[in-house]
C-alpha cells in the first residue's frame, strides 16, 4: 500500500441502504491514487464487495500529499442500480454512453422555447436519449450476468 486511507463522518443511511463516508488519502511525494485502488482498500476495510463501492469527488489539496473525497458502500448490487445516478453507472460501463451531441440538445432547446402545448411534447420526445424502458432493460441484463460472492 502506497497511501494511507482515513475515513470520517461515517453515516448509515437506511433509507437508501448504504453507508456514506468522507475519505482522506495521505500519499506523500507520490501522485494521487486511482479510484480503483481506493475502492479495493475500502472494500477490504469495510468487508464489502468491490462492485458495491462507489468513490467520487477525489480532489487534491494545494501542494499535494493529501486528497479528499467521498464514498458510498451499498448493501447489494440491486440497491446500487436503483439509487445511483445514471452518469455514475455510465462511468462504470453498466449503461452504455450517450450517442447524442451537445449541439443537438441545444437545437432542441431553442425549438422548445418557441413552442407550446402538444407540439412541445412532440419535439421533447423526439430527442435522442436513452428512454426509461431501455435503461431498465440494460440494468436487467447486467444483473443477470452478475454473480454475487
Amino acid at each position, binding site marked *: 500500500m502506497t497511501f494511507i486511507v482515513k475515513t470520517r*463522518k461515517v453515516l448509515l443511511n437506511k433509507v437508501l441502504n448504504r453507508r*456514506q463516508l*468522507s475519505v482522506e488519502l495521505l500519499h506523500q511525494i507520490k501522485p494521487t491514487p486511482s479510484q480503483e485502488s481506493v475502492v479495493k482498500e475500502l472494500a477490504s476495510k469495510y468487508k464489502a464487495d468491490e462492485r458495491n463501492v462507489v468513490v467520487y*469527488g477525489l*480532489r487534491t*489539496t*494545494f*501542494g499535494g*500529499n493529501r486528497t*479528499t473525497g*467521498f464514498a458510498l458502500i451499498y448493501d447489494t448490487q440491486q440497491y446500487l442500480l436503483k439509487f445511483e445516478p445514471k452518469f455514475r453507472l455510465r462511468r462504470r460501463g453498466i449503461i452504455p454512453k450517450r450517442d447524442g451531441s451537445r449541439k443537438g440538445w441545444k437545437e432542441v432547446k431553442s425549438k422548445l422555447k418557441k413552442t407550446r402545448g402538444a407540439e412541445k411534447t412532440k419535439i421533447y420526445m423526439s430527442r435522442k436519449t436513452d428512454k426509461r424502458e431501455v435503461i431498465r432493460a440494460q440494468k436487467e441484463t447486467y444483473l443477470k450476468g452478475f454473480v454475487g460472492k
Partner: protein
Amino acid sequence: MSGGLTYFKEDFPVYSDLISTINDQLQSIDNLHVITCTTENKNNIAQYLRAKNATMAKYLIHLNMYLLHKLNYGNLEEFPVDQLIEDKILIQKIIQAQKKLQYSIDKLSKYQETQINEDDQVVDQVEKLTLKPRIENLHKDETNDKINNPNQKYVPPKLAATLSKSDLNKQKQERREELRKTQRKANLIKSILDEQETDKPKEMTERDLQQLYYGRAEDEKQMEKRKYEEDHMTRLPTTRDEKRRERIAERKANVTRLDDFQEFETINKVLNKGTKKIKKPQGSKLKGSMKKIVKRKRR
C-alpha cells in the same frame, strides 16, 4: 330472563331520576336562553348545552328500550342499534368540545347567579358599567399631602445620576482599547518566549502547518466551502474569483528574493535584441462631438 327483569326493576327508579334531572337541566337552559342578552356567542353556548343534554336524554331512552327488548322479546334484529352508536359518538365529541367552551360556560353560570340575586329585569348594560374606570383613583398625590400631614417637610423626589448613551459608548470603547493593549503585550511576550529554545513542544494548529508546508493557509470562504461540501457529499464548481485568488496566492508563495526582477530584465533584453518594436496604430484625431457624429453615421 327473570333475573334480568328483577335487576331492571331495582334500577328503574335510578333511571327515572336521571331522566328527570336531565329534563330539569333542559328547562334551566331555556331560562338561560331568555335571560341572556342578544349577543351571538351566548346564544350559541345555550344551544350547545341544550343539544348536549338532549342527546344524552335521547341516548338513555334508547338504551332503556334496548334493554327492554333484550329482556322481554329477544328480537334484537329489528331494533336500530346504529342510532345508539351514533348517539354515543356524538356525546363523546360534544364532551371533547366542552373543554374549549368551559370558560364561557362558567362565565354564563356566574352571570346567571348574579342575575338571580339582583332584579329580574333584562340587564344588557350591567357588564359595560362594571368595566368603567374609577375616576377617583386618578388624582392621588402621595408625595405632597398637606391636608394629611401639614407639619411634614418637603421631601423632593429621589433622583439618581445616570450616564447618557454617548458616555456609555465611550466606556465600552475604553474597555475595548484596554483589552487590545493587553492582547498586544501578551502576543509580544509569547513571541519572545517562542523564539527561545526550550524542550517544551510547540503547538501547531492546522492553519500553521498549512502555512509552513504550502506557504498559505485557508481563507474563511474556503473553509466554509469545504464544510458545505463535506456535509452535503458534493463538489461545488470553482468560480473565476477563486481561480484568480489561487493564481495570486501561488505567485506570492513562489516569490523568494527581490533580486529576481533583475534576472527577468536581463533575460527579456537578450530575447528581444534583434526584434523591432511594433508601433501601435494611432487613435483617430477627431475630438469631442465630431467623434459622436461620425460614429452615429457609421451605424
